[in-house]
């Protein structure tokens, strides 16, 4: 299983005309297929911005570097090619860090370029100097400091390869100012190393096929790796062919259309109870491109207690990190699934789902189907989000922020493709939604893109309304406003005896006026009878708009696996408001 091919080519070529480091950088970006860049200029990166003029690349000036990094993240998710962001040294670079960490946690291809003070000044505490290479070491897949102007082209080529190959991730290129203005006629190659994914191991495939063929209560968890590796069609065929019960992680919503029969919904802390019960009772659990995150497993020692586990992933370092599988298949997901199918065909040993297990899963689905008959006078956000995603035949791309609304989106929105759901899964970064919607719309101008945000999250990158206006990026915004940091309030209510600490946002600005001040259309609604009209208005072909939705500050996300509990110990069982009072009483 040789996975690397190393070529050592040390060649020097004379180029047509001398160019500076910045021009070589732009050239290399273009050669790697870059069309769009999100960024913000400043002192140390001025030579690169100079070379950008008339380069043919389209640059989007975000109004904070964090916005640029989140936009690049979403662009990378949607295109599966690295989203590119750039910023100057010092504060520009540190402002990118949250977006880089976000891409790292969710395995998103990204190339981040930072200006750096001139090499002779590095290490002298120069103006706007920070060691961004050191700061980002824990959150990059790889990083470089450009030391040799002649190597820039090869270095950028390598950065793009590293960012996209195997398990994707962010790559940082720190670009000292003296190198960026240095002239050269030389182009030097670097020793080149190419990643090749391992072939699925034949013995592991055989063992997995046999395990599935002898299962009675099998279950599949679809993970984020399915979309990342473009394995959605193969995954669907596999699931449908054998009628396997299936659940997904937050990041994989849409790998099976959420309306499809047999789809149990998301699992985990705010998952559907049908999915959690199925996991806790299955006898063979096949995890495809997932990593057993703590929000998925609940109390790890109690997760899927009766199951033998098959774990498929491209990253060997995810195997047995948290749950030790019985069989690990390391490699690309699609070839592995195809090999499993082939093996089952050849041996006449298809994965089995017993009649009783099928009946049981169906019964759970029915019992725990979402309900929308919530009591109360106000707008029920889950229903509004459900209606939003069903407004057209083709669900919109939803770029989510982080908090209660994020969980409601995952629970209640319809997705027919995982790229319709952009969410900060691993990092859980508030402020992601609005700039992510910008990145998604730039990547897919033909798609309807909706940012769903909360009043806490929205204020973290509200300045990106100016980016939307400046470039006429047709993003629609649903702002769910409970005048609270709702998820924190919910946890304080449930797990801290109702003692509220710094969650009150009742002095929020008038969000409709804020949006209008940036030049967007805006409307506020607060009654259920305004929802249909509000969504029609928001999604009309009249350009960017914000629908400000005021909801009950006391609304909670149900059900919930309390921290440290097993996945079957869900609070708020039966969904909605039916039994929440009972749990809240218990916790107080």
């Amino acid at each position: 299983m040789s996975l690397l091919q190393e070529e050592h080519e040390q060649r020097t070529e004379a180029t047509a005309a001398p160019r500076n480091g910045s021009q070589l950088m732009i050239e290399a970006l273009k050669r790697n297929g870059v069309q769009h860049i999100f960024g913000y200029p400043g002192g140390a990166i001025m030579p690169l911005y100079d070379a950008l003029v008339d380069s043919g690349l389209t640059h989007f000036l975000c109004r904070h570097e964090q916005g640029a990094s989140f936009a690049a993240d979403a662009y990378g998710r949607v295109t599966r090619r690295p989203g590119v962001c750039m910023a100057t040294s010092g504060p520009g670079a540190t402002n990118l860090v949250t977006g880089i960490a976000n891409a790292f946690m969710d395995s998103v291809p990204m190339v981040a370029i930072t200006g750096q003070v001139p090499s002779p000044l590095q290490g002298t505490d120069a103006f706007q100097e920070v060691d961004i290479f050191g700061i980002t070491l824990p959150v990059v897949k790889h990083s470089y400091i450009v030391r040799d102007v002649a190597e820039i082209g090869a270095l950028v080529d390598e950065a793009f390869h590293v960012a996209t190959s195997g398990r994707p991730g962010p790559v940082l290129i720190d670009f000292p100012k003296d190198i960026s203005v240095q002239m050269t006629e030389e182009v030097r190659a670097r020793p080149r190393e190419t990643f090749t994914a391992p072939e699925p191991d034949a013995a592991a495939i055989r063992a997995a096929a046999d395990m599935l063929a002898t299962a009675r209560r099998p279950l599949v968890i679809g993970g984020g790796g399915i979309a990342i590796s473009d394995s959605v069609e193969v995954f669907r065929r596999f699931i449908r062919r054998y009628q396997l019960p299936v659940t997904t992680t937050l990041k994989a919503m849409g790998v099976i259309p959420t309306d499809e029969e047999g789809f149990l919904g998301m699992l985990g802390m705010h998952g559907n109870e049908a999915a959690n019960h199925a996991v806790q009772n299955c006898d063979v659990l096949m995890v495809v491109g997932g990593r057993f995150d703590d929000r998925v497993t609940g109390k790890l020692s109690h997760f899927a207690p009766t199951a033998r586990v098959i774990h498929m992933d491209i990253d060997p370092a995810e195997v047995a990190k948290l749950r030790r599988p019985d069989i690990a298949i390391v490699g690309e997901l699609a070839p592995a699934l195809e090999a499993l199918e082939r093996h089952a065909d050849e041996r006449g040993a298809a994965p089995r789902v017993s009649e009783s297990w099928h009946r049981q899963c169906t019964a759970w689905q029915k019992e725990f189907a979402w309900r929308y008959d919530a009591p109360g006078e106000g707008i029920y956000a889950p229903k509004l989000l459900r209606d939003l995603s069903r407004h057209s035949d083709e669900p919109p791309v939803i770029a989510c922020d982080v908090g209660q609304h994020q969980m409601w989106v995952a629970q209640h929105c319809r997705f027919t493709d995982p790229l319709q759901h952009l969410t900060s899964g691993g990092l859980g970064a508030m402020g992601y939604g609005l700039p992510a919607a910008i990145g998604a719309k730039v990547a897919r101008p033909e798609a309807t893109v909706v940012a769903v945000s909360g009043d806490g999250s929205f204020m973290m990158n509200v300045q990106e309304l100016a980016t939307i206006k400046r470039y006429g990026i047709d993003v629609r915004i649903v702002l769910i406003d409970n005048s609270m940091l709702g998820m924190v309030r919910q946890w304080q209510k449930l797990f801290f005896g109702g003692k509220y600490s710094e969650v009150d946002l009742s002095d929020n600005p008038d969000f409709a006026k804020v949006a209008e001040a940036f030049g967007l259309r805006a409307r506020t609604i607060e009654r259920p009878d305004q929802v249909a009209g509000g969504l029609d208005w928001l999604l009309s072909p009249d350009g960017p708009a914000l629908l400000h939705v005021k909801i009950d500050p006391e609304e909670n996300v149900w059900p919930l696996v309390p921290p440290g509990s097993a996945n079957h110990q869900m609070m708020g069982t039966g969904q909605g408001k039916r039994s929440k009072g009972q749990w809240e009483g218990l916790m107080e």
Partner: protein
Amino acid sequence: MNDSDRKHALNIQLRAAEGAVLRALGLIERRGFRLETVHAAEPQGDGQSLAVTVIGERPADLLRRQLERLHDVLWVELPGADTASADWTARGATNTPGTGAVARSAARRN
């Protein structure tokens, strides 16, 4: 040192690149191990080797795979490693990382 903690020796072969040593050592601490001894050899050509002993309760084989995911780590040896730690590849799988007294991976980083 808790009862559950164990000491492991690792030989790490690095690309001799800026930050490579820091990357490897930083990862070891972030992934839950204490560094006890570190010896960095003089770089030989494009490579540099690093010998460390670490203490921790997590599996050393997992640490090996996490290190090998780094772009600048070429391979990692666990001299004297117990190959039973890789029992997830049981049932005939041949991608078992351990191959005897020296567990060296055939699998590479992503």
